[in-house]
């Protein structure tokens, strides 16, 4: 129960962070990726600060044997730099630029009843299922 409540709270907090940061407005994302045009680098601070705060809390987490909810930690093990990683990231980047949405902001904007984001989320679901059907 603690774990479920915590996950809900973290989802809410993550979403509010995305909204305040400007990530849920596709215009900001497009401006950020428009390096050779009218570049707006502000979103770098989202990654930079987000990463540093996460790193600090990860340092804390690594010194614990159990989570605050009493469950196990699930740290990723994969270190492979392979074709699926690179090709997948390249396809993701293309879609991110095309619509100005990555998965988190799309879900938040869909929650705000933005019809374009709702369509995007359904297509994202379909894209994942197609990838699964193609194996690997």
């Amino acid at each position: 129960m603690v774990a479920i409540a915590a996950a809900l709270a973290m989802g809410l907090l993550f979403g509010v962070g995305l909204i305040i940061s400007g990530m849920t407005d596709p215009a900001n994302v497009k401006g950020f990726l428009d390096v050779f045009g009218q570049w707006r680098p502000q979103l770098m601070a989202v990654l930079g600060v987000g990463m540093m705060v996460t790193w600090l809390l990860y340092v804390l987490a690594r010194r614990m044997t159990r989570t605050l909810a009493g469950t196990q930690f699930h740290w990723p093990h994969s270190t492979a730099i392979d074709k699926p990683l690179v090709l997948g990231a390249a396809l993701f980047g293309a879609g991110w630029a095309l619509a100005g949405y990555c998965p988190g902001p799309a879900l938040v904007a869909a929650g705000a009843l933005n019809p374009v984001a709702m369509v995007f989320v359904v297509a994202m679901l379909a894209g994942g299922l197609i990838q699964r059907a193609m194996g690997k």
Partner: protein
Amino acid sequence: MLDAAWISWRNAATGGALIGLASGGLMLFNGRIAGISGIFHRAVEGSREGWRWAFLLGLVASGLGMRTFVAAEIIASNPTLYSYLTAIAAGLLVGFGTRMGSGCTSGHGICGQARLSLRSLVAVLVFLASGIAVTAVMRLTGTL
């Protein structure tokens, strides 16, 4: 009320800090990486793990809750047929790509960098390069 001028370094950094608290918090409380594409794909593919659905519900609810404060930026004012077609193509690419590459801006971007993962660094550099390249092409073809 936030307006179109909200994309400032301060807002980006403040939002980033909240995202960091949420990402770190999901590890401290749930022992999980806050990789939104992974959480999403696993959930819709039938995972019974409640924390995934709870986290996604929180994300969606934040949008619904903030709806009154954020006006036009989140609620597209007049979507065109073109914006819907673009959303379909882009959504397919993002869904396919994030599942294939095991992560997006949150999992590889925020969490992967916080773990100092070389694998995630490669993913971030590739999706940034790809996004910048596609944006440049869109600018050249007048579709940006």
